[in-house]
């Protein structure tokens, strides 16, 4: 992504697995439209993708110099995006509260900056953990929660 599309990437506006799934669905519909001579790929994409996402994607293509009018170029680009999204590792983050979207973005950005730049995030909510997070990453679950801290501290006492 970085080499081909510069500093911008799809991960700049796709953070969660839900967004990823929606975008994959939209892209797959858009790619299928290549067989429809009357419908442009980007038009098909705009019909299935969220407006904001579509605009971000359109901006990305523009920034990277991908021609939205060329059906084949657009399909190649979208296929590459599809591969990137499908291969992106997922961070499962269980929280004790329902985070704002800005907070989700903040967590994802931190993770991408410190752990993996092409990762997605899946948020779960479990009030029993009280605070903190259960971090599930690469088949490993680490409970960094207040509940766990309380249990450990009381046992050690």
């Amino acid at each position: 992504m970085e080499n081909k599309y510069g500093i911008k990437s799809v991960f700049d506006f796709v953070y969660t697995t839900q967004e990823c799934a929606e975008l994959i669905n939209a892209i797959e519909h858009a790619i299928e439209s290549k067989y429809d001579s009357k419908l442009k790929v980007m038009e098909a994409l705009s019909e299935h993708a969220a407006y904001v996402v579509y605009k971000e994607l359109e901006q990305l293509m523009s920034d990277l110099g991908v021609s939205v009018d060329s059906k084949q170029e657009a399909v190649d680009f979208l296929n590459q995006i599809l591969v990137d999204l499908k291969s992106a590792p997922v961070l499962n983050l269980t929280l004790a509260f329902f985070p704002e979207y800005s907070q989700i973005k903040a967590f994802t950005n931190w993770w991408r900056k410190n752990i993996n730049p092409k990762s997605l995030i899946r948020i779960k909510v479990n009030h029993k953990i009280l605070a903190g997070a259960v971090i599930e990453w690469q088949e490993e679950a680490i409970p960094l929660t207040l509940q766990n801290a309380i249990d450990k501290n009381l046992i050690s006492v």
Partner: protein
Amino acid sequence: METSMPAFLLSAIIWLPIVSLILNFVLAIFLIFLVQNGKLKPKEQQQIEAEMISVIKKADLAAIKIIEEATEKSQKIIADAEATKKVVAEKLDKLVDNTIDIAQNQLDVQKGAIVEKFREIYTTLIDQYKGESQALFGNLQQEARTQQEEFRKNIEEKSTEIFKELQEKALSDLNNTNKDISSYREKTLAKIDEQAKTIIKDYVAGYFTQEASKKEHENIVFKALESFKHKNTNS
């Protein structure tokens, strides 16, 4: 025997004046009778009466004298008899005393002999008893020592056995008690932990679900992420 002779004589002497008096009285009565019958003449009668009076007086005097003499004699005899009696009594007393002394002496001698015999027998018996006693005592002492030793051994064995049993029981009880205490302690601590956890969780849950802001939650999540990073970097 000597006292019965003076009594006989004394009785004869007492009766003699009495007989004499009776005879004089009969003679006087006879003369009075003769005078009253007139057989005597007044002169003669007077002479006779004078003679009679003289006779009577003489008889009285004789009788008194006889009585006095008899009295004296009897008194003398009595005195003699008393003296004799006294002497006899003294002699008898002396004889009795002597006899008693002799008997006493003999008794003393016999008694001494008996005592001596008794002492001899007693000494023999005592010696015999002493010997037997010593032997018996020695045997008893030996037996007592043996029994004492056996008793001591028994007591020692029993004591050791009892002490061992008590010690084992005490250790067993102690172990059981320790186990019970340990188990109770663990259970109690587990309960306390559980209760403390519940209380703390309730309190913390109350705070984080009702009072903590999303910003506070966010900060804690970032700390968790930092912790994850720190762990991964170190590993």
